[in-house]
């Protein structure tokens, strides 16, 4: 479908554009386009729909809309008509209600009830119809286990550029370590949350799994995100990478589990319905744990040292024999 979309989408844009341009000083077309998330050309075409229409004039006198377009600046004079956007539609309210419910689940107990009260007020005052009941038909489970408070703090710290002190547990460490981190981005990928940021212990950018952040506190220190930071450099194929020092690990999966593996991304098809996946990772331990989750249905093919890690992990369950 083209950017113009359906008549409903165009109407929605026009009913926002008219009040926007009716305000004192009007609006530059570029700003209108940015707010509407479309190109300037689409805004111009939307405008043509308005200018070529013929209103009925209840008062019989002046036109109820006067449109002035000068040097890409739009100003509309309206006579008490279309000078405000419409209220939230049922589906707009529904999306807000679903989001607020998810936010309430994440929030601390007291705050959760405040959010629910606010959702109710918004619904009564700003929406055309109630979304309350339908919102219960949708659930967004963003979390990877408990620890919503840690997640919320890290998100806020990333938004407001506040350095954090975190208690982080690497799987192989004998105890959790304290680190100071400037959280540049909090990223959700493959069902897990990660913090990508500058680790002051390592003096470099690192990705941390949020479910391994046992505790976090905001410090009284602000930071700047370097211009060259791009979270995309740490994300590929729907996965988040832990750092840029990478190693290739090949895992072979049996025909029994191959259908599940194929769902997650590209695979190499092998004989007898088996498949192989080449992972590029800075943390071979991750691949070890991943392979073990498939039991005997997955095998690390190479490199040799990662195979050894799997064997050692399996042996660990037998050493009391």
């Amino acid at each position, binding site marked *: 479908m083209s950017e113009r979309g359906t008549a409903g989408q165009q109407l929605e844009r026009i009913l926002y554009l008219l009040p926007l341009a009716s305000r004192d000083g009007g609006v530059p077309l570029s700003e209108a386009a940015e707010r509407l998330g479309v190109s300037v050309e689409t805004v111009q075409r939307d405008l043509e729909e308005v200018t070529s229409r013929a209103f009925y004039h209840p008062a019989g006198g002046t036109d109820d809309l006067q449109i002035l377009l000068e040097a890409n600046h739009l100003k509309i004079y309206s006579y008490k008509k279309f000078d405000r956007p419409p*209220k939230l539609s049922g589906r707009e309210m529904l999306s807000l209600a679903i*989001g607020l419910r998810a936010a309430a689940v994440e929030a601390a107990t007291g705050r959760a009830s405040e959010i629910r009260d606010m959702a109710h007020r918004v619904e009564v005052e700003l929406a055309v119809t109630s979304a309350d009941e339908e919102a219960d038909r949708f659930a967004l489970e963003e979390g990877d286990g408990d620890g919503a408070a840690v997640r919320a703090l890290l998100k806020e710290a990333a938004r407001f550029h506040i350095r954090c002190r975190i208690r982080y547990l690497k799987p192989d460490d004998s105890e959790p370590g304290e680190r100071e981190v400037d959280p540049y981005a*909090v990223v959700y990928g493959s069902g897990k949350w990660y913090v990508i940021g500058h680790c002051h212990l390592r003096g470099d950018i690192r990705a941390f799994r949020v479910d391994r952040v046992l505790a976090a506190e905001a410090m009284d220190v602000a930071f700047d995100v370097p211009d060259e930071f791009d979270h995309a450099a740490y994300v590929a194929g729907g996965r988040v990478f832990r750092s840029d020092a990478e190693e290739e690990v090949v895992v072979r999966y049996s025909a029994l589990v191959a259908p599940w593996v194929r769902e997650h991304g590209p695979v190499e098809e092998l004989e007898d319905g088996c498949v192989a996946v080449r992972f590029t990772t800075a943390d071979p331990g991750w691949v070890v744990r991943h392979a073990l989750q498939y039991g005997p249905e997955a095998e690390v093919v190479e490199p040799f040292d990662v195979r*050894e890690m799997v064997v050692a992990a399996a042996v660990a*369950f037998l050493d009391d024999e």
Partner: protein
Amino acid sequence: MADAISKTQRWLDLIAFLVGRRYPVEVEHIMDAVPAYAEKYQEGDKKARETVRRMFERDKDELRELGIPIETLPKVVDYGAEVVQAYRIAGKDFYLPYLKLIGDAGPVGPAPTPGEEVRHGSMVLRSEDMAVAYESLSTCYHMPSFPLKREASSALRKLSFDLGPHLGIVDSSPVLYVDQPGAEEIRSRVRVLSDALLARKRVRFTYHGIRRGEDTERDVAPYGLLFQRGHWYLIGHDETRDAERVFRVGRMEEPQLNTKSPKTADYEIPTEFSLDEYRHRDAWELGSDDEQTLEAQVRFEFPTSLWAERNGYGVLNEKLPDGSQVRTFEVRQISPFLRWILSLEGRARIEAPAQLAESLRYLAREVLAVYEASAAAAGTVSTAGGGAHE
């Protein structure tokens, strides 16, 4: 001949004609006044007039669907001789009230003039509440394959109307959702399913049953949509199996909404149904409620015990002096549970029941057998194998 009047223009004219009216307008009047109707209605024969009337009925329904609050009210005409249906859009139902923020933080937009406020009303929100509302909509917008993405965006636009130009969807937000490959395709499926759910219409689709490797045709009454661990799931009543089932949207092909009698619901969602029961389930907790559960005691060594506690895995049973913890699990699916414990590389062990602990050791031996077999085939010798842990 003048260009044909577009649907958008027709709708806009109809809204403009009805909005802010104190008294409702009867259909005849609308037919005369809205240009797109009038040009056919005034000159056409009876059949053409009926066509235009039907067009108005459809427009009215579609606009209501889009959230335009067109009211139907009775109106007395002909000096009391007849009561007919009439229409209007009340300004108070149509226009968004002014949003005003209180509190220190948060940008407050230019205060509306008192006259405007009286006409449309206003709503005062704390700036931190507004921040939560923005964030909630932004989350919905960015969440992979969220079905109401467009609506989340337009809602955010409306809420930010009074509050400055930079409060729309912020693409530079540091909280990001990574789209999985194929996210757009999933979104269009979730959209069909959510449309079906909201209208209570059944859906048909081909389902790739991954466990049995079979494709089956399903006819499902949707009860709920759940986003969990990066995937969308449909929970509904499977008509062919006459049972409540969970379907992963990624394993569906082209879900089709039942288009017969679009205004009539196909089913009702049972009052006892609760989507919450499907939340926060780990792989070993899935399965139907009538399946037997097994209570397992797992000892997590320090510091993995801290990780288990932080993420709420199982329920704490005992904290030991060395910092390890014994935690209790209700297990419905044994295999995923054992494999999960296996992936913890010996940092967690099953203490009870003994048979489950033995099953775990059996699984570990199976893994070793795989590595030994391939090493033997390749002629390499494992240094850590053979049970000789350092």
